[in-house]
């Protein structure tokens, strides 16, 4: 006998546990996408942009503000509004001096060499700030879906991000309460979105010019496997730098005309930055643009027309830097431009006509941008998320590590252990020995980069091996295994093999956030998390009550016709109370109201079930049912 499905009162839908989100955590904007109805789709709340500005504003009192509302505070409160946070992820103070010079907020370094940004006397790491952005993106995704969005996520990073930058991204997601399934390189993600759409075999180049970073990746797509052949890039090159070129021009001219003091304060600098950004965007669709800066307090109303030719001359060195990386990637892939089948443009700044023209000239073909360059990375991340939750096995990403990995030798040179563009996961083992009798520990310094001297490479930190059994100098055979996983993140394990004991050596990394530090941040963020959790629970309950109210009101006529007097009165009173309670904010009060309402609706539910069952059964004999 089959069961007839009865949908009586609209039951609230259980939160989607099965799926996973794809999140593009960008320098200027972030967004989420999900696989739905057979394809990846950007999560957009009706009437709003899908893009969440990666900006965090700290008001004097109350919770931090994230997104468009924060961006709007950039001019009024420049020291309290943090943007381009991605440029600081996994960096030390020394790495970002140039960036800091142009930014209005204060920065310092922890004892472990991590950067912190300061607002209202409090210090925040880039991981904590990015976590706020990720929470906002998740919240927006939930609103778009009409239910709590999955907390399992795939987050993208620039292909050229090194180990510390990737770890920082993982930590940020963890702080946001998200479970990271995978870190995926942005150009590779874009190729996934593009590959589904356009092409199933060939060699593709992805040119990704984002807000703060540039990547170029060469891929071979074959039999559903997206295999990266090479990748190159520049983590200090992006749309922000194009804006900066105009800012420099403007500052010089304004200083000459009105004196340098007029732009002295941070608010004015932000206003100028935003005005230049607007001009840059104008120039992408018109031959002339204008930098229009109005500062009433200084009685400044400055207009400067900029032609496309002038802009192109200004930014030509930046475009050339990106082409240098293209040449590098092609060289590493051992391919000439003629061998490329398709070129794909990703990132808002790839809309700039000068960029498009240069790319087309270099590769000898018109680049593709049918997919929205702002959304394609998130879409690709959603595809990967779909694959990882087990729903799609016909597509596989084979990515590479972008930088060579090496160990510093006695003389300060680098001994390369893993070559750049090696397919990940990859492993290599290197042997170490002791130089003194009974030495029980070895220190070594791991770096990433292509330079000959360790000092010129990116330091991944010093590692200590401890617990080597005491023995004469040179006898210990410590095998150190360097493993780079599918996310591009390094793990180091060690074994002492000579003694035959195969003791596992303890490896201490001395960089990045330790697990204890992440736990500490999580604990302090739990303060807010508890409030957030309560607030969300209250919101969910209010929604649920609303749904139940609607369902009951729809069936009131049936209730009046079929219910006994007492039950009907009970229901009508409960209905009135529920409507009033829905305006409450306290989760406990809402829970109570909801439970009472449900109890009062049970007689109506039973009545309706009978009615529906009767209608469904009408016309069928008992034998058929």
């Amino acid at each position: 006998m089959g069961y007839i499905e009865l949908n009586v009162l609209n039951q609230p839908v259980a939160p989607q546990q099965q799926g996973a989100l794809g999140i593009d955590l960008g320098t200027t904007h972030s967004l989420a996408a999900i696989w739905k109805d057979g394809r990846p789709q950007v999560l957009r709340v009706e009437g709003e942009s899908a893009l969440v500005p990666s900006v965090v504003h700290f008001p004097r009192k109350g919770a931090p503000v994230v997104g468009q509302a924060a961006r709007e505070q950039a001019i009024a409160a420049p020291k309290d509004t943090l943007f381009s946070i991605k440029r600081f992820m996994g960096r030390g103070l020394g790495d970002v001096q140039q960036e800091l010079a142009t930014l209005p907020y204060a920065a310092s370094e922890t004892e472990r060499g991590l950067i912190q940004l300061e607002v209202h006397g409090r210090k925040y790491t880039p991981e904590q700030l990015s976590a706020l952005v990720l929470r906002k993106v998740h919240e927006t995704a939930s609103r778009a879906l009409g239910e709590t969005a999955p907390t399992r996520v795939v987050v993208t990073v620039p292909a050229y991000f090194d180990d510390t930058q990737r770890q920082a991204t993982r930590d940020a997601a963890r702080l946001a309460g998200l479970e990271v399934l995978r870190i995926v390189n942005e150009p590779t993600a874009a190729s996934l979105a593009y590959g589904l759409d356009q092409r199933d075999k060939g060699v593709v180049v992805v040119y990704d010019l984002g807000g703060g970073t540039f990547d170029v990746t060469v891929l071979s797509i074959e039999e559903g496997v997206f295999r990266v052949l090479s990748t190159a890039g520049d983590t200090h090159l992006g749309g922000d730098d194009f804006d900066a070129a105009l800012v420099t021009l403007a500052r010089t001219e304004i200083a000459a005309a009105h004196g340098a003091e007029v732009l002295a304060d941070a608010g004015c600098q932000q206003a100028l930055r935003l005005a230049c950004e607007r001009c840059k965007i104008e120039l992408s669709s018109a031959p002339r643009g204008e930098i229009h800066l109005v500062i009433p307090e200084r009685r400044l109303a400055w207009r400067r027309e900029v032609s496309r030719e002038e802009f192109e001359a200004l930014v030509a060195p930046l475009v050339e830097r990106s082409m240098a990386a293209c040449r590098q990637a092609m060289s590493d892939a051992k391919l000439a431009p003629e061998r490329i089948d398709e070129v794909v443009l990703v990132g808002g700044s790839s809309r700039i006509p000068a960029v498009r023209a240069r790319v087309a000239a270099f590769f000898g073909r018109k680049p593709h941008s049918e997919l929205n360059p702002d959304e394609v990375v998130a879409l690709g991340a959603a595809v990967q998320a779909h694959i990882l939750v087990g729903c799609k096995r016909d597509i596989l990403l084979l990515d590479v590590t972008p930088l060579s990995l090496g160990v510093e030798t006695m003389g300060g040179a680098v001994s390369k252990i893993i070559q750049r563009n090696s397919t990940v996961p990859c492993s290599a083992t290197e042997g170490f020995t002791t130089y003194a009798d009974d030495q029980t520990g070895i220190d070594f310094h791991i770096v990433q980069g292509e330079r000959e001297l360790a000092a010129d490479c990116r330091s991944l930190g010093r590692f200590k091996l401890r617990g080597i059994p005491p023995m004469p100098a040179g006898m210990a055979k410590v095998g150190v295994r360097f493993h780079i996983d599918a996310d591009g993140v390094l793990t180091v394990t060690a074994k002492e093999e000579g003694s035959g004991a195969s003791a596992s050596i303890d490896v201490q990394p001395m960089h990045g956030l330790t697990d204890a530090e992440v736990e500490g941040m999580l604990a302090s963020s739990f303060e807010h998390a508890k409030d957030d959790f309560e607030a969300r629970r209250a919101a969910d309950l209010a929604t649920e009550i609303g749904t139940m109210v609607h369902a009951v009101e729809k069936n009131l006529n049936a209730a009046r016709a079929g219910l006994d007097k007492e039950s009907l009165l009970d229901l009508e009173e409960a209905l009135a109370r529920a409507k009033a309670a829905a305006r409450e904010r306290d989760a406990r009060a809402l829970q109570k109201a909801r439970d009472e309402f449900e109890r009062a609706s049970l007689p109506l539910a039973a009545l309706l079930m009978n009615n529906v069952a009767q209608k469904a059964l009408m016309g069928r004999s008992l034998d058929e049912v």
Partner: protein
Amino acid sequence: MGARCTSCGAALELPCACKACGALQPLATERDPWTELGFEPGFDLDEALLKKRLLSASRLVHPDFHGADAASRALAEALSARLNRAHAILADEARRADALVVLLGGPDESTSREMPREFLLEVLEWNEVLEEARQAHSWSATVESLRDELAVRRHGVLADVRALLAPTPARGDGRLQPARAKLNAARYLDRALGELEALRLSATRS
């Protein structure tokens, strides 16, 4: 080969995973790159077949398809790393030959650093040109013709290696020593060509 899947008992085409049931095979001692990818050890290799095997093996062992629990993922990571390493070795002629010499009991790079005599004399000349190029940090016609010359020489050296190693000699064969010497020469050429390419790219930049 005779190896069987520890899960379903089917014959294994590749040692890392079973095509029939999808099970990852336990991590054993690291195998030589040919065995890892199902080839007979030798200098010559069907490169198209090599790529096909890499793609199908990756689909079986990649950690993205084994994320259910930490242990499966860790095993998948280790098996993938081995697979990728084996592929990287087999995909490059010089690395392939180097692995073959070692597999056959011949000297490895660290025990024997000698290069053919006449080659050493040429190395001295080439080093002079390279040093000048380094100092000038520019790409001239001289440097370009050096690059072309080195590329041709590399091709020739590897042809010599092939003559020594194909058909595959027996273990401990007398040809392994001269093969090693030639491979050391090839290594010098690869380094020099790598440096010249880096110079070419940076010169174009400025």
